[in-house]
């Protein structure tokens, strides 16, 4: 087998793995969009905030430490304990649920029935607020996140591929974990939405508010639930990205990569988010591998948006999105 084909296969696999991480972020968008029609610009910041909170709790950092020190002249930084990873994740999940409640109570509760563009603007405001709030609470340093996930070369794949092709593929263990987690998450979310009472209620609210009220569904409860779910997905994405790249404020920018993913997969489809993520991940890696050298490289920065643009022209509802039919 020629070398370029073998390299291409490795690039393809790595593209799939990268795509899973994009899909994780896109999932959070789809959840909120499906249930409330809000395009949540803050989803990326939500992931950042979750990762920051997780690191802060694990390290036993004093929240608002800088602020407290500045006001009271104290020198508080750490409580002096460390919280085990699993407990810290559970606590962070609780914080995300609390955040969901507060966000719904203070912002979206008051915007019921407003135009989508107004809700969208509100989420932009929320994104900037959360970024600042995360900074004030936990500080702006780049942090290392280690919840005990395996990282680095997977020796088994390396060995198998070496025996097959005479060349060992580099596949990161973390990416493999992310793939498994994403698969579990998607199956769980789809099952929840399709076959449980609350999932059904969630779809009902997305479909028709009046009808949902008339069968006894509390809109507020469903919205808090949906924002909590989105917060939980953000936490998972935050853990994966944070472990990979360190917890830093540029994490919120990965949300931008989720946009082309959504345009491919459709804003309303959970499986679409996954497939869209994979296509973007594989597409940009393969494009860089095949075409990149010819045009001077750095195609990964724009390839995803190009592809999204093509989709917007030919299939605006995405691969799996609901077809928009306007009755005349």
């Amino acid at each position, binding site marked *: 087998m020629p070398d370029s084909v073998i390299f291409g296969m490795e690039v393809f696999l790595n593209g799939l793995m990268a795509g899973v991480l994009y899909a994780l972020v896109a999932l959070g968008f789809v959840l909120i969009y499906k249930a409330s029609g809000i395009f949540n610009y803050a989803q990326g910041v939500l992931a950042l905030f979750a990762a920051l909170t997780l690191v802060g709790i694990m390290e036993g950092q004093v929240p608002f430490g800088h602020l407290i020190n500045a006001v009271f002249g104290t020198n508080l930084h750490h409580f002096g304990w460390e919280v085990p990873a699993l407990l810290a994740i559970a606590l962070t999940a609780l914080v995300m649920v609390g955040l969901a409640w507060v966000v719904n109570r203070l912002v979206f509760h008051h915007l019921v029935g407003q135009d989508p563009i107004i809700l969208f603007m509100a989420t932009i405001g929320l994104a900037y607020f959360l970024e600042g709030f995360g900074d004030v609470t936990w500080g702006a340093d780049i942090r290392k996140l280690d919840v005990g996930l395996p990282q680095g070369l997977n020796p088994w794949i390396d060995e198998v591929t070496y025996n097959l092709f005479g060349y060992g593929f580099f596949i990161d263990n973390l990416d493999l974990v992310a793939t498994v987690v994403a698969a579990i998450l998607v199956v769980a979310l789809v099952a929840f939405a399709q076959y449980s009472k609350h999932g059904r209620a969630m779809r009902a609210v997305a479909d028709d508010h009046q009808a*949902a009220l008339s069968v006894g569904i509390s809109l507020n409860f469903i919205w808090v*639930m949906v924002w909590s779910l989105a917060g939980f997905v953000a936490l998972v994405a935050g853990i994966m990205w944070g472990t990979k790249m360190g917890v830093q404020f540029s994490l919120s920018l990965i949300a931008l990569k989720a946009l082309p993913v959504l345009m491919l997969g459709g804003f309303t489809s959970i499986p679409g988010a996954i497939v869209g993520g994979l296509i973007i991940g594989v597409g940009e890696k393969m494009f860089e591998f095949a075409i990149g050298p010819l045009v001077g490289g750095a195609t990964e920065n724009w390839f995803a948006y190009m592809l999204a643009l093509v989709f917007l022209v030919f299939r605006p509802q995405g691969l799996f999105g*609901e077809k928009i039919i306007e009755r005349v």
Partner: protein
Amino acid sequence: MLDASEGHVTADGRKIGGVVMEMRNITLRFGGVVAIKDISFDIREGEIRAIIGPNGAGKSSMLNVISGFYNPQEGEVWYKGQKRPPMKPYQVAQQGIARTFQNIALFEGMSVLDNVMTGRIRQMKTGLLAQALWKGRAEAEEVANRAAVEKIIDFLEIQHIRKTPVSRLPYGLKKRVELARALAAEPSILLLDEPMAGMNVEEKEDMSRFILDVNDEFGTTTVLIEHDMGVVMDLSDRVVVMDYGKKIGDGTPEEVRSNQAVIDAYLGVAHD
């Protein structure tokens, strides 16, 4: 006064019980417009109670007051012997008051089965965590409720469209699905807002039959708004007549038919 003890049996053998709901001096305003003015009436267990009146008489407003979509400025709603505080519509629904809408409010993207299942939310008590983990009780509950829903689907003869997305159904069937969803809640009071509006004669006959059958089979207390006078007179045990937000008549179809105020305001000059 509420007299839950009182009751009687109709000519066709249905049991009418005591008062289950009482509207007392209800007044509803939108800004300066008075939609309902000082109306009182009661609803008895097991009866079919119609509210009729010309366009803009306030019939739908009255239904919205009962179902909690509007809260009246004055007056009291008594339900099962207790004064009802101002409530959100979903709380009213959880108390066992189910409704349909004049313009049909179904979950268009969901299948008929899923639509009817949402009606069971009141009966399903397991919490979010149990639902999410899908363990034991939640599963048993889902199965039990599914069985109840299938019974209603059979009863309303919509088995053949169980898996069809609602958006693909014709108007008449949508109305029937909406009725099924309301019935799935096993309501103490079933509110029907113009259940036969926009239907052809055949569909109207079907719907009338279903309303009567439901009442007969499950003893469901039914309050309905209807334009078609013939239908109302055939279906209902008692009729409230509204005009310009006021009550101008209340009684059996025969009593209402011979009430001069009603004839003047609504029926016009009798043709026969």
